[in-house]
């Protein structure tokens, strides 16, 4: 066991626990909000994490044995605790400033097309920029542009919105039986590649939609049906040969608009579900309804309307700033060609 102190709260955790997991344990036990935000780490996907750098924390004491602080911020999702480690997250203004920098980088090339994005309302990048970013963006250049493509009948890829978290790549690597190599090209030309299209045959490929933290991979069967916050989530199950059959239905009246995995407090799928449950079972009669989803504090759907409006204001502000660079985007940020 190792004793670690994060933002002045001490917890004892098994050896091999990451700083992030320890912080989440503290939040679960104390109802605090000290866990760093994550955009690429996904506890159910091996080797995930380390890419986005939003979960950075500052280690002010390395361990009991070697109390030296770590010279640079570390990715909490990929750094394990040591006995006697002291970590600062929300209590370090410098760290928060560094994180705001990471958020700004993630938004630098983001199209900010939230008003027409199916992910709006459950987008982790929206939450992240609202909670950890600055109001202004200082990026004034052309944004990266790719054409949206259909990868198979069920999934739409908007590469413009992708933050290259590699989660979908790991899903394809770890849930499908063929080796897929998901990223082509280099640097800021990197692209989630159409190799994923091949994985669409696989029964579990739809999970790339659930792991995608932004609106880069969305459900084609749900496109423009409704804003997320106008749908009601209910938990339901069915006997399924391929997966647990435990899902969340997103309903409007009696209509099932969308089926997803159940997400936990950290926005992660509790269990991955198969494509049959996700795409083919859209009738209420397909399912045994368990009852309304208990939503956690973090979710936009759970927030009251005031909060929601606040969030939209935040997003609007970013979009407003984009007006200045409209010319570079051609027809402006809401370019219909880009939908």
């Amino acid at each position, binding site marked *: 066991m190792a004793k670690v102190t994060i933002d002045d709260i001490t917890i004892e955790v098994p050896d091999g626990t990451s700083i992030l997991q320890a912080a989440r344990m503290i939040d679960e036990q104390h109802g605090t909000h000290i866990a760093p935000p994550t955009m690429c780490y996904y506890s159910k996907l091996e080797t995930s*994490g*380390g*890419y*986005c*750098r*939003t979960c*950075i924390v500052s280690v002010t004491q390395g361990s009991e044995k070697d109390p030296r602080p770590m*010279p*640079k*911020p570390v*990715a909490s999702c*990929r750094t394990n605790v040591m006995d006697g480690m002291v970590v600062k997250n929300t209590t370090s203004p410098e760290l928060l400033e*560094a994180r705001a*920098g*990471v958020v*700004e*980088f*993630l938004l*630098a*090339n983001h199209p900010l097309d939230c008003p027409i994005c199916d992910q709006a309302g459950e987008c982790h990048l929206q939450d992240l920029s609202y909670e950890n970013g600055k109001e202004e963006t*200082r*990026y004034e*250049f052309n944004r990266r542009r790719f054409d949206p493509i259909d990868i198979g009948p069920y999934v739409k890829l908007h590469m413009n919105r992708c*933050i*290259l978290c*590699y989660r979908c790549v790991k899903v394809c690597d770890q849930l499908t039986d063929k080796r897929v*190599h998901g*990223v082509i*090209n*280099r*640097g*800021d*030309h*990197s692209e989630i590649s159409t190799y994923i299209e091949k994985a669409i045959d696989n029964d579990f490929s739809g999970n790339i939609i659930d792991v995608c933290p932004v609106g880069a991979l969305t459900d084609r069967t749900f496109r423009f049906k409704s804003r997320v916050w106008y749908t009601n989530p209910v938990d339901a199950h069915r006997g399924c040969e391929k997966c647990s059959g435990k899902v969340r239905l997103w309903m409007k009246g009696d209509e099932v608009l969308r089926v997803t995995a159940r997400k936990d407090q950290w926005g992660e799928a509790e269990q991955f579900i198969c494509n049959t449950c996700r795409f083919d079972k859209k009738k209420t009669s397909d399912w045994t309804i368990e009852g309304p989803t208990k939503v956690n504090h973090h979710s936009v759907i759970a927030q009251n309307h005031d909060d929601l409006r606040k969030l939209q204001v935040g997003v609007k502000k970013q979009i407003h700033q984009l007006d200045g660079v409209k010319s570079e985007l051609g027809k402006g940020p809401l370019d219909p060609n880009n939908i």
Partner: protein
Amino acid sequence: MERKLLLANDHIEGIHTLDVYRKHNGYTSLEKAFKTMKPDDVLEEVKKSGLRGRGGAGFPTGMKWSFLAKPEGVPRYLVCNADESEPGTFKDRYLIEHLPHLLIEGMIISSYALGANISYIYVRGEYYYLITILEKAIKEAYAAGLLGKNILGSGFDHDMYVQPGAGAYICGEETALLESLEGKRGNPRIKPPFPAVAGLWGCPTVVNNVETIAAVVPIIKDGGDAYAKIGIGKSTGTKLVSASGHINKPGVYEIEMGITVEDFIYADAFCGGIRNGKKLKAVVAGGSSVPILPAELILKTAAGEPRLMSYESLSDGGFATGTMMGSGGFIVMDEDTSVVKNLFTFARFYHHESCGQCSPCREGTGWMEKILKKFISGKATMADIDLLWDIQSKIEGKTICPLGDAAAWPVASAIRHFRSEFEEYVKHPESIHDVKHYFRLNNLEIQNA
């Protein structure tokens, strides 16, 4: 002082062949090691020599070797990093081109010390002609029983392979190199684990630079102690320096560590002074990644001491007034050089070479390049100087691998020491008269923003 341990014979006709190399005492270190020393004795000599990695970071080689995990029944690997892509650095190319057997001899001795039965030389893709040279030399070594089974009757088997890269700077980062060697996308790995524990195919691996491995040959020949006497302080031995820029005699020089920078720039044995009698303006002393220093700070430290060609002296004063030895790519700029334009070229490079895994480097490098382009097109504002500063500070130390730092440091140091030049570009955009020429030269579109 000129002191030649590695390049003593580089001028000899045919030295790239085994016969000629052997005639000039080639492979005698190997014979000595295999006939009179145990693997740990070799390690001990390398430790004593104080040799530090010549790939850029200067990590003590003996220590690195002693970290190598040795679990029972698991192969170990030695990988030679010949990806040499840091702008301003071309010493490894020179060494391999002229003395391939020196590298191979060093590889076999090092592998013997590490207990590695297989080694790889990962060669930068653009150095395709070196691959032919190396493969020929390796073939000769096999034919002479210096590679293969039971080398010189020692019972030690060793196979050596050459692997070309595909033209990516990032594949010089040791873990990206290993990924590439495994046939994967050249993305740096997240550490730990370090290669010494889980490297190539998850097995314990040592990655060393070409020059580091070659230096093992003279260390075994004369002993670690003798090697440690050469040089100054913790900068032992000799160093290959790739000298380029506005000097009279660009090229690869082997120097004893501890000579003064002034000597290196002005002495006839080395760079031979600034071209066309011009004045020295600035130096990037260790390859494009290290901080640029103005003439007064590269010749003398902030304390007024002469600056020496050594790890310690070059970094004296930290980044505020010092720089780094880096990979030994010594780029000299005369009084007519534009620090801002040079920086733009560097920024383009890092943007192009970022692997794109982590957000600060992926997004930040391109952003910095775009802002610098504004400067050299006469479109920048004073606020852009501060913005550049802020962006580099938000990349540095927040990335997976040091490429992020390498992209940030040149920007930081150029602003730190040459801020007035950036301001000049803002105040007098009309003075950037040769910008069109520059853009054409570099195949760039002029920004119409």
